[in-house]
C-alpha cells in the first residue's frame, strides 16, 4: 500500500511516541524516567516539525522548537534538580505489577485505535491514524499517573499526557501559535506551582509518597 514517505514517517514518529510512552510506564528509576520523557519530547518535536513540513505550516516549526527546548531540556533538567534536592532518587513503587501495567497499556492502545478508527471512517487516513496514536499517548499518560505512588512521576505522567494532546493538535490541521504559547505558559505556571507544592509537602511530611499523605486528610465519616 505505497502511499508514500509522508504517511510512513508521520506514522513512524507517532508510533515512536507510543513506544516511548510504554517505555516510561515500565521505568522503575526516576532518572531513567526523566530521560525517557526527554526522548519523548524530542520525538514530539520531530513529529511536529514533520507535520510542519507536510502541511506547509511554518508556525508549527516554532511549536516544535518550543517542545524541544521546553519539554526536552528545561523540564527534565528542572525536575532532575528538584529530585536531587528532595533526595528521592530511589526506586519508584508502582501500585500494580509491571506485567499488569503493560497489559493494561496494550488494552488502552487497542481501545484508542478501535475508537478512533471506528468513529472517523471518512476522514483523511493520515490524520485518523495519527489521532489514534495521540489518543493512545494520552491514555498511557493517564495510566502512568494512576499507577504511580511518587508525586514526581505523576507530574511526568501529566506532562506526557500533554505531549499526546500536542500531537493530536498538530495532526489535525490549523493549530494557531497563540494557543500554543498560552498552553506553554500555563504549563510553566503549573510546573512552578507543582514544584513549590512538592517542596511544601516534603517540608511538612518528610515524604512525597501520596499514600502517606492520605493519613493527614481529616476525619472520615
Amino acid at each position, binding site marked *: 500500500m505505497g502511499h508514500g514517505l509522508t504517511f510512513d514517517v508521520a506514522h513512524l514518529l507517532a508510533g515512536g511516541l507510543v513506544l516511548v510512552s510504554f517505555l516510561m510506564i515500565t521505568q522503575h528509576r526516576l532518572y531513567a524516567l526523566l530521560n525517557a520523557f526527554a526522548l519523548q519530547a524530542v520525538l514530539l518535536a520531530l513529529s511536529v516539525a514533520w507535520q510542519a513540513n507536510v502541511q506547509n505550516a511554518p508556525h508549527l516549526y516554532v511549536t516544535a522548537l518550543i517542545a524541544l527546548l521546553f519539554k526536552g531540556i528545561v523540564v527534565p533538567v528542572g525536575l532532575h534538580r528538584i529530585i536531587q534536592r528532595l533526595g528521592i532518587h530511589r526506586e519508584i513503587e508502582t501500585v500494580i505489577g509491571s506485567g499488569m501495567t503493560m497489559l493494561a497499556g496494550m488494552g488502552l492502545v487497542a481501545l484508542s485505535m*478501535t475508537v478512533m478508527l471506528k468513529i472517523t471512517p471518512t476522514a483523511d487516513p493520515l490524520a485518523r491514524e495519527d489521532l489514534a496514536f495521540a489518543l493512545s499517548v494520552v491514555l498511557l499518560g493517564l495510566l502512568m499517573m494512576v499507577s504511580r505512588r511518587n508525586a514526581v512521576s505523576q507530574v511526568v505522567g501529566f506532562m506526557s499526557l500533554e505531549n499526546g494532546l500536542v500531537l493530536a493538535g498538530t495532526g489535525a490541521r490549523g493549530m494557531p501559535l497563540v494557543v500554543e504559547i498560552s498552553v506553554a505558559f500555563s504549563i510553566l505556571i503549573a510546573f512552578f506551582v507543582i514544584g513549590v507544592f512538592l517542596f511544601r509537602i516534603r517540608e511538612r511530611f518528610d515524604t512525597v509518597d501520596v499514600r502517606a499523605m492520605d493519613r493527614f486528610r481529616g476525619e472520615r465519616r
Partner: protein
Amino acid sequence: MELISNLLVQIMQMMLVLSAAPLLTGFVRKMKARLQRRQGPPIIQPYRDLLRLLKKEVVVAENASWIFRVAPYLIFAATWVAAALVPTFATGLLFSWSADLIAIIALLASARFFLALAGMDIGTAFGGIGASREMMIASLAEPAMLLIVFTMALVARSTQLSAVVDLLSASGVGLRVSLGLAMVGLIIVAIAENGRIPVDNPATHLELTMVHEAMVLEYSGRHLAMIELAASVKLLLYISLIGCIFVPWTLAGPGESTSSHLAGFGGYLAKLALFGFLLAVFETAIAKMRVFRLPDFVGGALMLGLLGTLLLFVSRSL
C-alpha cells in the same frame, strides 16, 4: 538451470553458515575487548577452541543417560537446519518452501527442548537452575518471536521467509510503524535467545548468573564443541534474520547472475561485521539485568509484537 543454481546456493549457504559462525563470535569478542581497552583473543580463536575441544577426552557423569550423549547432535542438527533456511546472501534457496518462519522458530524450540533436558539429565542443582530459567525466558521470548513473525507475515501476506524478504526488498513497502516495532522486538528477542548481556552473560562462570552455561556445565570435549558451535550458529541465524528482513537490499534474487551473488556475499559479510560491532557496543554499554527483571525486558518484546500485530489487524496500511 534455475534448479541447479538454487541447489548450489542452498549448499553454499549451509557451508557458509557453519564456517562463518565461529568467525562472528570471535569478531564480537574482539570488539568487546577493544571497547574495554583490552587486546582480546584473535578473531580466529573460536576455531582453535573448537579444534582443541574435539581432540579432548569426554568426561561423562556416571549417571548420565543416552539423552546426555545424543542431545549435542540433535541441538546442532536442529540449529543448523534452521540457519540453512534463513537467506544470507541470496534468496533463491532450493528448500525454502519446506519450512517457513514458524517452522524455523519451532526448530529452535526443539534445540532448546533438548538442551534443557540435557541440563536436567545429571540431576545437579546447576542443570535445574539453567533449565528452569531457560524455559522461563523462552516462555516469553518464543511468543514474542511468533507475534513478530505474525507482524511480518501480515505485511508480506505469507510466512515463507523468502517471500517476506522478496517483498521487503522490492521497496513497495516503505517504513511502516509495525515493522519498526517488529524490528525493536526482534532485537530484544535475539538478545534474549542468544544469551547475551543484559539477559545472560556468555563469558561468565558464576553460578547464579548463568542460564546457558548452567545447562551445559557437565559437557566436555567433542560434545561441548558441538554445543558451542550450535550457539554460534544460532547467533548467526538471528543476525542474518535481522539483516535479511530489515536490510534486505544486498541479497541476490533467485536465478540472478554470479556477480550479483558475489555482491550479495560481500554485502552479507559487511552486515555481519556491522551487526557484530553494534552487538559488542550494546553489550559493553549496558549491565546484566537481575533475573527477575528479565520478564519486563522480554515481556516488552512480547508487547511490541502484539502491538505490531494489532496495528496491522486494525489498519492494513500501518
